[in-house]
């Protein structure tokens, strides 16, 4: 069997596995967020928090909950890293410097997991397991909560109430992320991922002497890293490290975990708004982009244009033997089309066009299928932009799911769309114009520019992967990327929740013969086109200077 055939078969197997999980998981999540029953342990937690889980919140209250919880998360994680030197169980690792500690705290709370440190030489057990891994759970649950609040905005009418943030947060962790993580972690250990609390210890070598290893609760962190579309690796090499991702099966399993919640949430959405077909239209849009990008990536990586790859006879630089080209391409597209940013192969050493596909995937706003929660709400905002554009063409007030997309709604949607490009392009321009930031580039020319563009694209879109040649552990990059991550996460949430509140107050308008049907293939086509055009117009000049220039030169 050729490597190309094996790559395609792996993609097909992945599609089949996701299709099998789609209905049960999507329906289950709809029940989780709609159920009025509170489990006994959950009641204890609400008591400890001092929150009443049945109290409905309007959008400002819901937003205050999100922001308060996240702000506390940033401060706690910052303090934990600064105190590492004196904490027990830190393996003797020192306190993290203030700029890097801020960057890392912002990164993990914003579900980005950009890492300017390398795990095995900076973070001990306490920070990794008690700090970073905890944010892997809760930042994912926050994203899902905001998505569900927006879905309720569509589903409800003549009320401003969007649910209870604390209940959505706790249920997301308890009923969805934790059970799946326990099962997934055991499967990863069965493949060979490590899971222990031993300190750094010496192990013999074949040629004599010894090597020093770093143990840790790796599998339990790895599983939530992918399931929660977080992406922050225990080790520097992330999912390329054999202790995190030991076999071709574990690799495909990790890609499955990255994609399963974002895709299945479209079923949850369809169920909660009372029309499964609306969910299928969104699903079809996400799947079209995802499969198209994967096919393109496999094509360019197997074709291996670029001087070094042509001498080598294949684009294997930065890729692992056990995965090869096909499984690496699948992983890299899944991680950049979601907000994951985990890598099983190093993006900087992809072909010029391959790097362009990764950048474009993030620049789409990570909505195909996107991060847990953030993918769904990002896609629904684009869905509103698409009906708005269609409405302009025929001169009708646009509607989506029976709700009018009026001036107020479209303003929030437009603000949402503008946040990340403003952060990405503004910071990239500033970094290139200032005298010292360009010193961080490893490669020169077009690829060096791509490193900087990639860093801000990854940060502002909450991805976390990198063209890792860039030395991002400087005060400039730690601070600006940290700010980009926080604004890129929480400003869009403000607009989404405001939008949700405004939608929930409307009374539904009945569909007429003139209403654009948003559950048909025609609409899916319109939505795919809108996404590509809006993103293309925004980023084309920047892409032309980086990956396109590099790809066309080789």
């Amino acid at each position, binding site marked *: 069997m050729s490597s190309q055939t094996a790559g395609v078969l*792996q993609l097909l197997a992945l599609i089949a596995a996701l299709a099998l999980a789609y209905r049960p998981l999507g329906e289950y999540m709809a029940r989780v967020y709609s159920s009025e029953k509170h489990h006994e342990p959950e009641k204890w937690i609400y008591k400890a*928090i001092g929150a009443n889980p049945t109290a409905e919140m309007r959008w400002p209250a819901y937003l205050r909950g999100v922001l308060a919880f996240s702000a506390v998360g940033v401060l706690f994680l910052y303090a934990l890293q600064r105190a590492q030197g004196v904490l027990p169980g830190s393996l003797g690792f020192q306190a993290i410097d203030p700029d890097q500690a801020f960057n890392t705290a912002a990164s993990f709370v914003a579900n980005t997991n950009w890492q300017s440190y390398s795990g095995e*030489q900076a973070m001990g057990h306490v920070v990794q*397991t008690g700090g970073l891994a905890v944010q892997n759970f809760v930042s994912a649950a926050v994203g899902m909560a905001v998505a569900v609040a927006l879905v309720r905005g569509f589903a409800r009418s003549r009320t401003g109430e969007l649910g209870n943030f604390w209940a959505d947060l706790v249920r997301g*962790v308890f009923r969805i992320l934790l059970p799946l993580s326990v099962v997934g972690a*055991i499967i990863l250990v069965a493949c060979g991922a490590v899971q*222990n609390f031993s300190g750094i210890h010496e192990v*013999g070598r074949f040629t004599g002497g010894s090597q020093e290893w770093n143990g840790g609760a790796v599998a339990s962190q790895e599983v939530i890293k992918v399931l929660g579309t977080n992406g922050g690796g225990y080790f520097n090499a992330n999912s*390329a490290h054999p202790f995190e991702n030991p076999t071709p099966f574990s690799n495909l399993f990790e890609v499955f975990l990255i994609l399963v919640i974002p895709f299945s949430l479209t079923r949850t959405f369809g169920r909660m708004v009372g029309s499964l077909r609306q969910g299928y239209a969104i699903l079809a849009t996400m799947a079209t982009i995802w499969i198209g990008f994967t096919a393109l990536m496999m094509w360019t990586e197997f074709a291996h244009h670029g001087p070094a790859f042509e001498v080598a006879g294949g684009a294997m630089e930065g890729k692992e033997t056990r995965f090869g080209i096909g499984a690496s391409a699948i992983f890299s597209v899944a991680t950049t089309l979601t907000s994951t940013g985990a890598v099983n192969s190093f993006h900087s050493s992809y072909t010029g066009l391959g790097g362009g596909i990764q950048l474009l995937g993030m620049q789409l706003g990570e909505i195909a299928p996107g991060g847990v929660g953030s993918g769904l709400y990002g896609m629904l905002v684009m869905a509103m932009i698409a009906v708005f554009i269609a409405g302009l063409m025929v001169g009708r007030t646009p509607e989506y799911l029976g709700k009018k997309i009026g001036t107020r709604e479209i303003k929030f949607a437009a603000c949402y769309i503008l946040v990340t490009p403003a952060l990405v392009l503004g910071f990239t321009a500033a970094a290139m114009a200032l005298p010292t930031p360009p010193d961080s580039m490893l490669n020169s020319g077009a690829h060096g520019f791509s490193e900087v563009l990639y860093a801000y694209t990854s940060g502002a879109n909450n991805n976390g992967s990198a063209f890792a040649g860039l030395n991002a552990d400087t005060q400039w990059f730690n601070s600006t990327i940290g700010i980009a991550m926080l604004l890129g996460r929480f400003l869009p949430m403000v607009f989404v929740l405001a939008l949700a509140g405004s939608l929930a107050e409307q009374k539904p308008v009945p569909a007429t013969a003139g209403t654009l049907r948003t559950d048909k293939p025609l609409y899916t086509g319109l939505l795919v086109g809108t996404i590509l055009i809006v993103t293309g117009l925004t980023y084309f000049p920047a892409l032309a200077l980086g990956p396109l220039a590099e790809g066309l030169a080789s």
Partner: protein
Amino acid sequence: MNTSVSHTVRLIGAGLRALLVLTVICGVLYPLAVTGIAQALFGDKADGSEIKDEAGKVVGSSLIGQTYNLPGQNPDDPEEAARPDLRWFQPRPSNGLGTNSVNTRYSLILSGATNRAGDDEELIKWVTDAKAAVVADNSTAGFKVRPQDVPAEAVTSSGSGLDPHISPVYAGLQVHRVAERNGLDVKEVEKLVRDHTEGRQLGFMGEPRVNVLELNTALKALSQN
């Protein structure tokens, strides 16, 4: 004003309590429970898949690649170029590993890629030199390696820098040299490589591969008997 301040304080307090409760559950109980189950069911794997040689001595992890170099000639020179010990099967190059400059207390194995672009001059040189070395090292009196026979992974660095595998093609290129250096029959070494070749999982997942440490451990046993 006062009410809004006390409101904010109450909210921050709720956020902090929520974070602490979830930290206990997701950051303490969950990893402990998973570690307990993992250690009970798959203890060896959870501890890093260590493998032992015939004498029972731990020689490393089957998941972590190693180098097989000759001892340095000048112990005072850390910059000395490593020379491969051609008795053993050689792994992929590993040009991406930095030195452990952050933490001077340990000499940990570090993971990392080169992150070089396809048009990077240094990468082109590394690949060109590696290819020449593979051809020169593996050609014996009766077996000539041609540059076009050398697979891509043999001359490039992996993502982790710790890739434990090489392709069966690269292992096959090394058979004649290894047989000659160990005074073994080519057929015997070929069989050893065949026995240590893993196909794709379930026939389609990943790529065929040979675990270098396991292969060398078996080779050592064979050449000593």
